[in-house]
């Protein structure tokens, strides 16, 4: 038995709404796959940063960054429910499929945002908490509400939101922002367009259907392919900069350079893809490789730092 409040009834209809959402549905709002990338890069920032952090505090920092990223994902799903319902890739998400109401997702996202920022501030430091708050704001408001539906450069500028986590991890340990953490930021920032436009190429008809101005729909396939190659080259270059600046070894530099060549190679494959190719196999291959690439670069940085820390070389 349950007590009925007035807000449980739809206006005028007399119908009673009672949620059948499971904890799994709420977890899905957090975009777990995106969260795993955020957790990994934030952890890399935490490991690579000079200095030490108590392991428990470090774990809490990662948890807060993960929850903050998840909260921005929930806010994104709340705002984008209308277009999510139309696109095949997103139609089964909790809100368009009717498992969670938009206002539930909004409340969930706002609550988790507030908790993750406050706990990070209290447990670690307020600079990292401020960066996390800005990241959530940037993704939910600047990217989702403003850029995504207004400019084909949406993913370039919006990519900053996904690039902040290693900088936050760094700030958790050092209490500051430095050129090294900016380089960690730039690796993900410059990687995002090539990664996302590869997806946009083979999902361009989905984006076209909902009127989201993704680059392939607005500027055409060729321009997108050229820009993918440009960003892949920039990513390959910036990934070697840790060695140039001296906070990673030559071994890491060679590893990152080899990965970068692979990234550029796959981008050239996309460039040579025939116009109007429906299967878009090279774009799918680039998308898959880009995920491996980012994980490998940050793994390389962490392994390199651990080897240097323990004096194994």
């Amino acid at each position, binding site marked *: *038995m*349950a*007590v*009925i409040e007035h807000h449980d009834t739809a206006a005028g209809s007399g119908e*009673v709404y*009672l*949620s*059948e*959402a*499971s*904890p799994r549905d*709420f977890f899905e709002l957090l975009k777990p796959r995106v969260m795993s990338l955020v957790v990994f890069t934030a952890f890399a920032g935490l490991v690579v940063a000079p200095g030490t952090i*108590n392991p*428990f*505090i470090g774990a*809490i920092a990662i*948890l807060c960054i993960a929850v903050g990223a998840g909260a921005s994902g929930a806010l994104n799903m709340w705002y984008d429910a209308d277009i999510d319902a139309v696109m095949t890739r997103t139609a089964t998400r909790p809100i368009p499929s009717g498992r969670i109401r938009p206002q539930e997702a909004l409340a969930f996202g706002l609550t988790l945002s507030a908790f993750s920022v406050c*706990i990070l501030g*209290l*447990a670690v430091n307020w600079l990292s908490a401020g960066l996390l708050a800005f990241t959530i704001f940037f993704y939910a408001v600047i990217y989702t509400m403003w850029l995504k539906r207004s400019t084909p450069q949406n993913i370039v500028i919006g990519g900053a939101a996904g690039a902040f986590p290693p900088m936050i991890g760094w700030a958790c340990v050092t209490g500051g922002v430095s050129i090294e953490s900016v380089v960690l930021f730039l690796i993900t920032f410059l990687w995002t367009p090539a990664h996302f436009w590869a997806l946009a190429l083979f999902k361009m008809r989905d984006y076209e259907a909902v009127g989201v101005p993704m680059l392939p729909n607005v500027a055409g396939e060729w321009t997108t392919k050229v820009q993918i190659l440009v960003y892949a080259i920039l990513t390959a270059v910036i990934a070697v900069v840790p060695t140039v600046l001296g906070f990673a070894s030559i071994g890491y530099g060679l590893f990152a350079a080899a990965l970068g060549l692979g990234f550029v190679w796959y981008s050239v494959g996309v460039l040579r893809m025939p116009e109007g190719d429906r299967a878009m196999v090279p774009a799918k291959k680039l998308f898959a490789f880009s995920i491996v690439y980012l994980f490998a670069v940050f793994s390389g940085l962490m392994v390199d730092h651990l080897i240097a820390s323990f004096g194994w070389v």
Partner: protein
Amino acid sequence: METINLTESQKKSRRGRNIALGIVLLGLVVLFYIVTLVKFSGGMAG
């Protein structure tokens, strides 16, 4: 006071949400306990 009877499916999902919320609250208690211990021990060491 107006009441209604819940279906089995609604009861099951509500139970699931309550358990999840309980686990989260317990996790927060443990988290703040650990943070307090770490901060205090750090303060004493300093």
